[in-house]
C-alpha cells in the first residue's frame, strides 16, 4: 500500500478502488459475525470457495466475508449482490445450488428465503424483510457489505471521507461545535453529551491528552460494540482520529474485553492498515496532525468498564473506580485530560461530520438524536442487532422488528440497560425509546441490551440473577456496594427458595436505597435498579413467592413440584434413565410385560427438570 500524503491522494485512491469494482458484478457476501460463526458460517464460506474455484473460469464471481448483518437468529446469512437477495439459515450443502441457480442463472431458491411468520409470504430482498424494514441502519449500514479486514472496502463505501473534511476544512472548535449541535449522547450507558465532554477535555490544561474507546461491553446480553468492532472497525477508528484532532490528543487506546478475540484481531488489522496508508501516525494525510492508537485487553472484570476503573487497569492497577469529584476529562489516565467514549459513540462521529449535524438531528427525539443499536434478545422471534431511530416505541421494536414472542406466548417485560437498568412492563410497551423516557420509568438506555421476557420468565428470578452478577462483579471496596448487593442477593435467594417473609420487600427497598446512595461508583449506584423496578411493576409476583410459596412462571425450582401423569405415561422409561437422582421408579412396557406407570419420589427429586425435557409424551407435569 502506498502512503497517502494528502486528501487529494486519498480521493484518487478511492476512485482507483471504485474503478476496479463493477457494481453489477455478482458478489456473494457471507456474514462473518460471531453469531453466524456459532451457526457455522465458516463451513458455508469454505463450501462457496470450493464451488467458485471449481466452476468459474476467468472473471468470476466475488466472495466476501463481511461483518455482522444483525439478523443473528437466521444465520448463516448470505446476500447476493447486486440484487441484494437474502438467503437465511444457509448450510454448506446449499452453496452449490446457490451458485448454479441464483448467481449464474438469476433464479431464487424459495426455501432459503425469509418467510413471513403470519402471511407465509416469501421475501427475497434484505430491505423488504420485516426485521430490517423499520430499522434505520446508519451506523450498521456498511457492516453487511464490507470485509472488515480490507481497508479498501471501507474506502470504497465512502469511509475516511469525514476525516479529511475535519482535518482540512474545520478547526477543532468547529468540530466540537458540530458534535454538540448534533447532540450526540454517549451510547455506552451514561448518555452524557459527547460534544460537551470533548470541549471540557480540549479546554483542560495539559499538553498531553488521551482519547479512549471503551469496548469493554460488560452488560450481559449486549453485543453491539462487538459487532461494530468486528464488522466495521474503521468507522470507530475514523471517529477516534477526528475526536483526537478536535481535543488535541495524540495518543489513543482501544480497550477491548478479553472475551472478544475476533474484535481484538480485526481492530488490530484495521489499525495496521490505517498506519500503512498514512491515516494514523505522523502527519496524517499531510495535515501535520499526529495520532496513533494502541489496543489493550480487559481482564474479565465488568467493573473495569467504568471509566476510572478502566484507566486504573491501563495504569497497571486493579480495576477499582475512584471518586469523580474531579472529572477524568480534567484529570484521567496518568492524571492527564482523558476523553473516554463508547464504541458506538465514536462510530457516530464520521457520520455527523460527513453529513452534518443538521441532517443528523432530523432523526430521533428532542432530547435524544440519531439512532441507537440494540441487541434484541431473549424471548423474541427475531433475535439480533437492530438499529432504530430514537423515539421508536418498544412495541414496534418487539413486534414489528422482533416478530413478537415465540410460541405465541404472552409478552411480560423488556429489560433494558443491563444490570444497571430495569424492567419495563406491558403497560408501558408504547413508550418511545430514548434516554430520558427510559430513565423516567425506572430503567435506563444503558449500552443497548434489550432482553425480552415472556410469561415463562420469573421476575424475581431475574432480579436474583442480576444481583448475583453484581455481587460477583463488584470490586468490593465500598461496604455499601459489597454488602448491599450480597445481602440483596441473599434475600432474593430466600424468596425464591420459599423462605421469604413480608418484611423482605421493605428491607430490599431500604438496602437498595443505601447501596445506590452510599456507593462510590455507578456499579453500586445503579445496582438496585433491577430489584427496585421489578418490585415496582411486579410486586404481586413477589408476594406470590413470599406468601403462597408459589412461582407463577414455574422457574424457581424449590417452589416447583414434578409429577408424572399416570394416565398419560407410556412407560417408555426415558425419564427414569435421564434422572440423575434415581428418583423415578416404574416398569418399562415391553412386548412381554405390561409395565407400570412411572412415578417420581418427591423426597429424592432434585427438581432438575430432566424428566420433563426427556419425556416425549408430555406426561410430566410441573406445578
Amino acid at each position: 500500500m502506498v502512503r497517502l500524503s494528502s486528501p487529494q491522494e486519498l480521493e484518487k485512491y478511492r476512485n482507483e478502488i471504485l474503478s476496479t469494482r463493477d457494481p453489477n458484478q455478482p458478489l456473494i457476501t457471507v456474514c462473518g459475525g460471531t453469531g453466524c460463526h456459532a451457526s457455522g458460517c465458516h463451513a458455508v464460506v469454505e463450501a462457496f470457495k470450493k464451488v467458485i474455484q471449481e466452476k468459474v473460469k476467468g472473471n468470476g464471481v466475488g466472495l466476501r466475508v463481511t461483518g455482522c448483518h444483525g439478523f443473528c437468529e437466521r444465520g448463516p446469512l448470505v446476500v447476493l449482490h447486486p440484487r441484494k437477495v437474502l438467503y437465511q439459515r444457509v448450510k454448506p450443502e446449499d452453496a452449490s445450488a446457490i451458485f448454479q441457480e441464483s448467481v449464474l442463472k438469476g433464479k431464487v431458491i424459495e426455501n432459503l428465503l425469509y418467510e413471513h411468520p403470519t402471511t407465509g409470504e416469501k421475501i427475497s430482498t434484505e430491505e423488504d424483510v420485516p426485521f430490517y424494514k423499520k430499522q434505520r441502519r446508519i451506523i450498521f449500514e456498511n457492516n453487511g457489505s464490507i470485509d472488515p479486514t480490507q481497508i479498501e472496502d471501507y474506502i470504497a463505501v465512502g469511509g475516511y471521507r469525514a476525516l479529511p473534511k475535519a482535518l482540512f476544512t474545520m478547526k477543532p472548535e468547529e468540530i466540537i461545535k458540530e458534535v454538540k449541535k448534533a447532540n450526540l449522547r454517549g451510547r455506552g450507558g451514561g448518555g452524557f453529551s459527547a460534544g460537551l465532554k470533548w470541549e471540557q477535555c480540549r479546554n483542560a490544561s495539559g499538553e498531553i491528552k488521551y482519547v479512549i474507546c471503551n469496548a469493554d461491553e460488560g452488560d450481559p446480553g449486549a453485543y453491539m460494540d462487538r459487532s461494530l468492532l468486528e464488522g466495521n472497525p474503521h468507522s470507530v477508528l475514523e471517529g477516534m482520529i477526528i475526536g483526537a484532532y478536535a481535543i488535541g490528543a495524540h495518543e489513543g487506546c482501544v480497550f477491548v474485553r478479553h472475551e472478544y478475540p475476533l474484535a481484538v484481531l480485526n481492530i488490530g488489522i484495521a489499525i495496521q492498515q490505517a498506519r500503512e496508508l498514512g491515516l494514523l501516525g505522523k502527519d496524517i494525510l499531510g495535515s501535520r496532525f499526529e495520532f496513533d492508537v494502541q489496543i489493550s485487553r480487559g481482564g474479565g472484570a465488568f467493573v473495569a468498564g467504568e471509566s476510572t476503573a478502566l484507566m486504573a487497569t491501563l495504569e497497571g492497577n486493579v480495576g477499582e473506580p475512584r471518586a469523580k469529584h474531579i472529572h477524568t476529562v480534567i484529570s484521567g489516565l496518568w492524571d492527564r485530560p482523558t476523553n473516554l467514549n463508547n464504541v458506538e459513540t465514536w462510530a457516530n462521529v464520521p457520520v455527523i461530520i460527513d453529513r452534518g449535524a443538521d441532517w443528523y438531528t432530523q432523526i430521533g427525539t428532542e432530547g435524544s438524536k440519531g439512532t441507537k443499536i440494540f441487541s434484541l434478545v431473549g424471548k423474541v422471534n427475531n433475535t439480533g442487532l437492530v438499529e432504530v431511530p430514537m423515539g421508536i416505541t418498544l412495541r414496534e421494536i418487539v413486534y414489528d422488528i422482533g416478530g413478537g414472542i415465540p410460541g405465541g406466548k404472552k409478552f411480560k417485560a423488556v429489560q433494558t440497560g443491563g444490570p444497571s437498568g430495569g424492567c419495563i412492563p406491558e403497560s408501558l410497551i408504547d413508550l418511545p425509546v430514548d434516554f430520558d423516557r427510559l430513565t423516567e420509568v425506572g430503567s435506563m438506555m444503558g449500552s443497548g441490551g434489550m432482553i425480552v421476557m415472556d410469561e415463562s420468565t420469573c421476575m424475581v428470578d431475574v432480579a436474583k440473577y442480576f444481583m448475583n452478577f453484581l455481587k460477583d462483579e463488584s470490586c468490593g471496596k465500598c461496604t455499601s456496594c459489597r454488602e448491599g448487593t450480597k445481602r440483596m442477593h441473599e434475600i432474593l435467594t430466600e424468596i425464591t427458595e420459599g423462605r421469604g417473609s413480608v418484611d423482605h420487600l421493605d428491607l430490599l427497598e431500604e438496602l437498595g436505597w443505601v447501596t445506590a446512595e452510599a456507593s462510590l461508583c455507578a456499579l453500586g449506584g445503579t445496582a438496585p435498579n433491577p430489584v427496585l423496578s421489578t418490585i415496582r411493576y411486579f410486586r404481586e409476583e413477589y408476594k406470590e413467592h413470599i406468601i403462597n410459596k408459589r412461582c407463577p412462571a414455574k422457574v424457581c425450582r424449590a417452589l416447583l413440584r414434578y409429577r408424572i401423569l399416570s394416565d398419560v405415561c407410556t412407560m417408555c422409561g426415558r425419564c427414569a434413565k435421564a434422572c440423575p437422582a434415581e428418583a423415578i421408579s416404574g416398569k418399562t412396557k415391553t412386548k412381554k410385560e405390561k409395565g407400570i406407570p412411572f412415578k417420581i419420589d418427591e423426597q429424592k427429586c432434585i427438581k432438575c427438570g430432566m424428566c420433563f425435557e426427556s419425556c416425549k409424551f408430555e406426561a410430566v407435569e410441573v406445578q
Partner: protein
Amino acid sequence: MTQTEIDSIVDRYGRKESAILSILQDIQTKEKYLPRETLEYVGEKLHIPLNKIYRIATFYRALSLMPRGRHEVCVCMGTACHVRGAQRILDQIKLALGIRPGETTKDLNFTLETVNCLGVCAAGPVVAIDGEYFGKMSSTKVEGTLKKFRSDQKKEGANGKA
C-alpha cells in the same frame, strides 16, 4: 515457561509496569495458567511487589492461578442465555462433570467456567468448549456435546449411567 520466554514477553511491552495485565494474559495464553514461580519472577523483573501481583492475578477473572484442564467448558450466563434456561444447562454440566465453576476435573480433562456474556445472544443458551461455540444448547444435548471431548478413561460425575 522458561525465564527467557517470560523475558521476551516482558520486553514486548517495553518492561512497563503498567502493562502487567497484558503481560500476565500473554503468559497465561501459553502456559494455560500462572504458576507461583512465574508470578514471582515477573514481579522481580518489573519491580512490582508480590502482594500487588497476587492482587491483580486474583482480581481479574481472565487470569487463573490453578492449572487448567485440557478442555475449557464455558457456559454463558448472560441475561439472554439466562432467560433461555442457562442455569439448567450449567446444573446439568455440573452433574455431568462433577465439578463447580472455576474447578477442574481430577483427571485434568475439563475446566468449567461461566462467563457473563459471550456476545452470541441470538444462539442462546450458548456453551463454548475450547472456543468452539455450541448454540441452542439444551439439557438433553449436554452429554452428547461433552462426549466429543471426554478422555477414554472412566466417566466423571454423578451421572454414571451409560
